[in-house]
């Protein structure tokens, strides 16, 4: 560790540089403020975007509009990623896992996917008397399963992971402890889904993804689990889809 002001070596436990007297803790506090600014701006931009999307989105939204919405969403994430590109790129290195750990990671989305699909579907039906079929949204287009696969399984796995477990995780880690970082990223990941009932499963799901991001310093495991989880949901929606109801 070196002093950012005089480049002399400094002890990790020092509060001040012994040679020029520069405050190390002041530098840390400035870094935290910068991180906090980015977190708040990122979250407000996401909220404004999601609010607009929810206001314009309805059952008759065209495929072109949906592609435009997804493109803007991806572009916003990439703009924020650009601010922290040097810390995000290394997160795309492949994690080193033992065979047993790989089995655990590959099993996890099957457990979460099936339990969420049947558990939440049941709760939604009992509490709110409603049921959502993601596949049905695309049924009037050619290749509906392919569209559902791209919009629901692939895109969120790529962009939500880099946004929450990449950018947001890195900024929070600059300010606070790893434990709080995992908790907060999971909490905010649950909040942006704008669904009260979903918090019940998205929060623990986010905790798992955040823990894996920290444990293996890679986004790949989160992306794989997120992708397989969403693919299971879409596949079950496809399996249970009944054209008579739509």
């Amino acid at each position, binding site marked *: 560790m070196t002093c950012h002001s005089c480049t002399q070596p400094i002890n990790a436990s020092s509060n001040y540089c*012994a040679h020029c*007297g520069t405050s190390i803790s002041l530098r840390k506090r400035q870094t935290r403020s910068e991180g906090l600014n980015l977190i708040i701006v990122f979250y407000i931009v996401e909220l*404004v975007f999601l609010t607009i999307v929810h206001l314009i989105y309805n059952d008759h939204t065209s495929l072109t509009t949906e592609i435009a919405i997804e493109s803007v969403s991806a572009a916003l994430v990439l703009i924020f990623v650009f601010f922290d590109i040097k810390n995000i790129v290394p997160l795309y290195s492949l994690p080193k896992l033992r065979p047993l750990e790989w089995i655990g990671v590959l099993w996890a989305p099957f457990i979460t996917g099936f339990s969420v699909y049947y558990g939440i579907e049941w709760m939604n039906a009992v509490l709110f008397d409603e049921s959502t079929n993601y596949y049905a949204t695309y049924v009037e287009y050619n290749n509906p399963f392919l569209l559902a696969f791209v919009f629901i399984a692939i895109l969120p796995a790529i962009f939500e992971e880099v946004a929450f477990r990449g950018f947001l995780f890195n900024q929070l880690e600059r*300010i606070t402890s790893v434990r709080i970082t995992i908790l907060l990223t999971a909490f905010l990941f649950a*909040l942006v889904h704008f669904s009260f009932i979903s918090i019940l499963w998205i929060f623990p799901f986010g905790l798992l993804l955040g823990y894996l991001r920290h444990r293996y310093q890679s986004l790949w495991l989160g992306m794989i689990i997120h992708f397989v989880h969403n693919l299971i949901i879409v596949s079950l929606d496809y399996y249970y889809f009944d054209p008579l109801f739509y």
Partner: protein
Amino acid sequence: MEELTMQQPVCSQCETVLTTETKFCTHCGYPELGSEKEQSQFHAKRVMANQQHEVNTKRIASAQKTLYWMSGIFLVFGLFYFFRTEDISILITNAILSILYLLLAFWTKEKPFATLLSALLLYLTVIAINAVVDPMSLLSGIIMKVIFLSLLIKGLYSASQSTSMRTI
């Protein structure tokens, strides 16, 4: 035989052991071998840092009070809308928000940064969800919203400036 004891220099402000060739104390930053001007600048900076610390503590305390107020207001509004519209879902949502804010308020002393960031972003999400349901709701109670948001933001930035990692 005469025993020779080498006395190591210590900082005159915090008594941290110093190495002979260093000008500044690595613990408190005091320029032990600096000029008189540098030493008086150190004392002036320390007074300012103490004042800033007091300001930060006060801001965190008022942000904590804000959380208690928000908890109460969510509950009162939930009850009000329930008696007016008989919609149980609004009452349940507001009751859960009220409990969440109460828990965050309790936890603020221990972890001010985590609780105030959660409280601020949760509040912004509630405003956004209400705007989806009714865009005009953005304007209702705008003064109260601005007051709550500014108190939470001030508290949050003060909490992020804490010198102890344990509290953030």
